[in-house]
C-alpha cells in the first residue's frame, strides 16, 4: 500500500514529466502546444497508465475484497484528480499570475520602480493573452471584436469562486451586468486585515 500511496503522491511529478515530453514533441512536429490544453491532455491521458500501474502494485491484490477494492479505487481516483487539478493551478500561476509576473520582472531587473510597472504590464497585452487562452480552451469565441461565451466551464467556475469569496467575507467577483456598462469590481482590502 505504501508504494501505491507514493505513486499517487508523485502525480504532480508524473504530470510535469509527461507535459515536458508531450509539449516538446508537439512543438517538434509543428503542432500547436499551448500550455493549458497540453496540461489538460496530459492529465486526462494519465488516468489510464497511472491506473494500470496502481492496479499492478496494489489494487489487483484486493480483487477478492470488494469493499477494499472499491475504497482504494475511489481513493486513487480522488487523489490523482485533485493533485492533477493542483498541478494545473501551479502551471496556470506560472503562465498567467500577475504576482508571479511582477516578481519575475523584479528578479530580472534586481529592483523595479512602481512607476515602471504599467509600461511592463499593459492591459491590452494582458487581455489578449487571456482571451487567446480562453478561446484555445473553447470557453469564448471572438468574432469581429465581439466576445461571446462558448463553453460554460470557466463561467461556472467563476460563479463558484464568487460565491466562495462571499463566504470568506470578500465582496463577490463582479463585472458589468450588461455590455457597455463597465463597473469596476469591488475587492478592497478590509480595514480589519491584521499582521
Amino acid at each position, binding site marked *: 500500500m505504501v508504494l501505491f500511496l507514493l505513486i499517487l503522491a508523485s502525480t504532480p511529478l508524473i504530470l510535469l514529466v509527461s507535459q515536458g515530453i508531450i509539449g516538446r514533441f508537439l512543438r517538434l512536429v509543428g503542432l500547436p502546444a499551448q500550455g493549458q490544453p497540453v496540461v489538460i491532455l496530459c492529465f486526462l491521458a494519465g488516468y489510464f497508465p497511472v491506473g494500470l500501474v496502481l492496479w499492478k502494485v496494489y489494487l489487483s491484490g484486493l480483487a477478492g475484497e470488494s469493499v477494499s477494492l472499491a475504497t482504494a479505487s475511489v*481513493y486513487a481516483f480522488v487523489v490523482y484528480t485533485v493533485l492533477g487539478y493542483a498541478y494545473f493551478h501551479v502551471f496556470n500561476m506560472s503562465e498567467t499570475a500577475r504576482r508571479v509576473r511582477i516578481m*519575475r520582472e523584479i528578479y530580472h531587473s534586481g529592483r523595479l520602480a512602481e512607476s515602471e510597472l504599467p509600461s511592463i504590464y499593459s492591459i491590452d497585452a494582458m487581455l489578449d493573452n487571456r482571451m487567446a487562452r480562453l478561446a484555445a480552451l473553447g470557453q469564448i469565441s471572438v468574432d469581429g471584436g465581439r466576445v461571446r461565451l462558448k463553453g460554460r466551464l470557466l463561467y461556472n467556475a467563476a460563479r463558484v469562486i464568487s460565491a466562495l469569496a462571499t463566504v470568506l467575507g*470578500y465582496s463577490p467577483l463582479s*463585472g458589468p451586468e450588461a455590455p457597455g456598462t463597465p463597473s469596476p*469590481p469591488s475587492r478592497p482590502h478590509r480595514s480589519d486585515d491584521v499582521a
Partner: protein
Amino acid sequence: MNPAVLIYGLVAFIFSIVVHVAVWRLRRPRNRPLALAVVFFAVLPAPLGLLASFGPFHIDPAGWFAVVLLHTALAAAYILSYPAVEAMSPTLVVALMVGRSAEGVDREDIVRFFEECAVLEPRINDLLDSRFIARTGGGLTLTPAGRAVTAFFIAFRRVLGLPTGGG
C-alpha cells in the same frame, strides 16, 4: 483499504475549512499564504489526534499515511485555488462578463473595464503583505522568500521547455 481512510481524510479537510472560514471572517490575516499553510497543515495534528483517540474506526500506520495524503491533496487544491477568491482574476472576470450577456461583450468594453479598475496595485499590496517583495530605496525588491518562489517558477518553465511566462 479501510473505508475509514476516505472518511477521516474528508473530516480532517472539512475541519481545516471550518477553521479557515472562522479565522477569515473573524479577522483576516495579513500574510494569507502563511496563514493558509498554518490552518491546513500546522493545525492538522489536532483533528488527526482527535480522530485517533475518539474516532470509531481503527486505522493502521499506512492508513494514516493515506489520510494525510488525501488531506494534503485536497488542501493543496484549495490553497492553489484561493488566490482567485481573494483577488479579481482577470480570466474569471472576463468569463463572468461574457457569460452574463447573451449577445456577448465588445472587446473594447472589457478593455475599458480593466482600465478603470486597479489591476496591479492590489497584487503589489498582496506581495508586500506576504513578504515576497519589499519597498526599499524607492523601488521594489525581492525578499529571500520571493526570490525562492520566483526561481521555482522560472525553473519550472525551463523544465517544460517553455518561455518564462506571460502573466
